[in-house]
């Protein structure tokens, strides 16, 4: 089976659709477990220290919510891991040398921690000592968050490849510095930004569910105390989230200027660029029409002057390149046009091909010429690595506008994420103040708002990933490998079939999950008297 060009585009679209669908479902369940694990651990610590059975009952209730989410997060996670191979065969070979290591470490160090102590956390109440149980709850939470670390290191490498060198013998990138991969500034920032977003999400969910109890005037003590813990946890997390978000945007400005331009729908680069607070884009933006003036891309926009330059480069005067600068080049700012990058990438691939042919035929002269050419320590080699191989992925593009991501999707998702991010800081602050004043149960509108905030926090969480991943398009590995050169050589029909099978299955499971969850919330924590009987240490 060899794919035709038409097939190929279908395969790329369906592969992306399948991966995006699995990832979004995965991300509906994972962030809650990231944060709720720690909230449970904090509550159990209070129980451990006070011996107050109220806390044991409370923590068991939140653990039940944790468990229901956990199962489906695990299920969708398995599929994601294997989809790297099934849907992205070329990609998994190309990045295997870098990406595989974090993934294997994740399996060895984090997944086992999580799953081993998860069983103790749920079934060990009467089988192990209180101290062992408390440790297990903490280790489950830490394990869950460590799992996130390694996969985010891998994702950061796809956004900002570092610590690796291209090897023409194997036709792939190979790791040369593990620390550069692990401690890449993008990786560190991404990790903290992502897990704290999970903390914020879990805090909002705990507050929202507690608010429902307060509205129903049930379990009021559990609800009030849960709200206090969740709002402190949430407030700290959301402030940290804003800081890492700001750091993330500054990194994008440096490492992925096209993504930044898409986030702002900035066509013509400018000094003292303003930040669009809100705006409505014209439909041509979605069709990759290149506007000459930034204002023409909008029906209207509200802008804060100079803020984009300030946030991106910590300098209100700084020049922020626009989409046109990247597409057509800008000699003044030393930006190479995409057409030029396509040429550089093609030169790299040609050199690799000739090198491999010389090796196959045993042509020693040509071979030694290319050995020097690919050696990063020679001047020619430096040019090869810093210019040609750096733009390897552009070789596969047919036309420069392919390098532009879906701007409307990135633009609006960014605003949803940031807008809601600020809303949640305010939300936690108000919740905390009122719950400390013990007047929170009197304001029914606020309790309703807390419940409504649950879907909002999920929306902002998914929007954040859309900015990161759709904004990276067309690349799977930034500037090195486009999605079109990453796929497996399979028929689009096979992808379509499995896409719909999993779509139906995940949707059914999501509905089942929500129904179980709502029912468990309605049932509430176990009555205290049953609790007393099974409590062996009482």
């Amino acid at each position, binding site marked *: 089976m060899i794919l035709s060009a038409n097939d190929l585009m279908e395969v790329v679209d369906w592969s992306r659709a399948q991966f995006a669908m699995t990832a979004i479902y995965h991300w509906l369940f994972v962030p809650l477990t990231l944060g709720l694990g720690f909230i449970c651990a904090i509550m159990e610590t209070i129980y451990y220290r006070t011996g107050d059975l109220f806390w044991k009952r409370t923590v068991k209730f939140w*653990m039940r919510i944790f468990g229901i989410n956990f199962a489906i997060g695990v299920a969708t996670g398995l599929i994601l891991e294997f989809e790297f191979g099934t849907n992205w065969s070329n990609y998994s070979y190309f990045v295997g040398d870098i990406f595989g290591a974090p993934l*294997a470490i994740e399996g*060895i160090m984090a997944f086992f921690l999580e799953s081993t102590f998860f069983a103790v956390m749920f079934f060990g109440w009467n089988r192990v000592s209180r101290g062992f149980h408390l440790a297990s709850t903490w280790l489950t939470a830490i394990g869950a968050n460590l799992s996130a670390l390694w996969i985010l290191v891998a994702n950061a490498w796809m956004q900002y490849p570092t610590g690796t060198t291209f090897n023409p013998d194997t036709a792939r990138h190979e790791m040369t510095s593990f620390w550069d991969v692990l401690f890449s500034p993008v990786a560190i920032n991404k990790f903290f930004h992502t897990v704290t977003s999970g903390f914020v999400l879990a805090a909002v969910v705990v507050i929202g569910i507690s608010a429902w109890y307060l509205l129903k005037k049930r379990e009021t003590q559990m609800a009030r105390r849960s709200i206090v813990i969740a709002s402190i946890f949430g407030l700290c997390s959301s402030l940290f989230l804003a800081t890492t978000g700001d750091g993330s945007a500054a990194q994008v400005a440096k490492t992925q200027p096209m993504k930044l331009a898409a986030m702002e729908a900035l066509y013509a680069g400018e000094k003292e660029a303003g930040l669009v607070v809100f705006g409505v884009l014209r439909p041509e933006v979605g069709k990759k029409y290149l506007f000459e003036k930034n204002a023409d891309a909008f029906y209207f926009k509200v802008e804060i002057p100079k803020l984009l330059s300030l946030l991106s480069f910590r300098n209100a005067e700084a020049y922020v390149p626009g989409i046109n600068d990247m597409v057509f080049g800008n000699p003044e700012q030393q930006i190479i046009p995409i057409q030029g990058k396509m040429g550089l990438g093609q030169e790299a691939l040609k050199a690799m091909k000739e090198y491999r042919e010389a090796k196959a035929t045993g042509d020693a002269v040509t071979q030694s010429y290319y050995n020097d050419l690919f050696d990063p320590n020679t001047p020619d080699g430096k040019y090869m690595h810093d210019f040609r191989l750096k733009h390897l992925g552009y070789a596969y593009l047919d036309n420069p506008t392919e390098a532009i991501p879906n701007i409307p999707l990135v633009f609006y998702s960014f605003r949803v994420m940031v807008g809601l991010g600020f809303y949640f800081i305010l939300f936690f602050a108000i919740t905390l103040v009122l719950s400390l004043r013990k007047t929170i149960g009197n304001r029914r509108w606020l309790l309703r708002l807390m419940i409504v905030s649950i879907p909002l926090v999920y929306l902002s969480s998914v929007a954040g990933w859309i900015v990161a991943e759709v904004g990276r398009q067309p690349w799977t590995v930034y500037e090195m490998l486009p999605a079109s050169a990453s796929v497996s050589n399979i028929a689009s029909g096979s992808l379509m079939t499995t896409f719909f099978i999993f779509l139906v299955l995940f949707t059914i499971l999501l509905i089942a999950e929500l129904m179980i969850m709502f029912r468990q919330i309605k049932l509430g924590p176990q009555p205290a008297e049953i609790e007393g009987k099974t409590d062996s240490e009482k």
Partner: protein
Amino acid sequence: MDTVYIFLQHYWWFVVSLLGALLVFLLFVQGGQGMLYVIGKTDMERNLIVNSLGRKWELTFTTLVTFGGAFFASFPLFYSTSFGGAFYVWMLILLVFVLQAVAYEYRRKPSNLLGEKTYNWFLMINGVLGTFLLGTAVATLFTGAPFVVDKANFGNYEGFNTISRWTTAWYGLDALSDPRNILLGLSVLFLSRVLGLLYFMNNIDDTEIFSRSRRYLKWNAGLFLLFFLPFLLLLMLADGAAVDPKSGVIAIEPYKYLHNLLAMPLVLAVLLVGVVGVLWGIYIGVVRGGKRGIWPCGLGTVLTVLALLLTAGYNNTAYYPSTADLQSSLTIYNSSSSKFTLYVMGLVSLAIPFVVWYIAYVWRAMNRKPLTKKEIEQDEHAY
């Protein structure tokens, strides 16, 4: 030749093989699930079974994920060739494992949409199909698969650029056409059931379940041997793909796997000890009616599978022969990660004994007393 690199490639094939071997042992969870209605005649008995397995399913699942991750990390070309090529088989395997992951947690929860019976069926489907398909897929490491690999394709910026491709439109379902693959699939299925029954006898404190498990053990053990011994025999008679480590050229060698065992007496010894262990465990369960058959049988399973996988990849053998183009066959030399990556991961893998230690510690702490009906009746987290 770079001996350190060669050592690391062998080391990682060992780690991947060991993870695969542990996975097959842990498939006792699947084996047990497949007999949910055979051993569990009442709702209460089924609950006991599910809760007994439910304390271990995560471990099996995690081992599967880690096996995949370690294979990806150490031999990325296999990941890219097999997963992207035998697409349908892997997707089917994934599907049945998704069904499992939710079934435990959801089956007895009120308002679970599909009803308890459906989730029980999910467990059984995973128990039967999951084991059979994994066994069939692993058998292709000996019998081969129809694929072509050409790294130069990556240089084609116009048109076709995938490095590996499947040459049939069956995308992995072609594995079902070789009877040896089916034999190994069925062997893994019945071995997992043997292990599952021995696990019930060890872990559940209920005389009915114990005696029923003992009765079924005889039949499942018989069927396992009926499928496994012919597979082993056919494997010893089979041709294999041998690689010349210097030139990388691959050639067919008759009786390759037999030669491998004779050339590596230690691996042969591990295989024999493993087989004896499995039989010993079965003997304890069937004849003596003992509770501890799971341990020799489990250890025997790990050793047997480990020896078989080492036979597939060591002694200059292509561990994934291509039936479409012999030179495309994957060996531990031509499909591994770079030396540096294998080295870094090698350091990380030194943590594995520690991981195994805490898993064993927790297992013991949790299994000190067998599971009883009374306990799950009182446990609000019971599945």
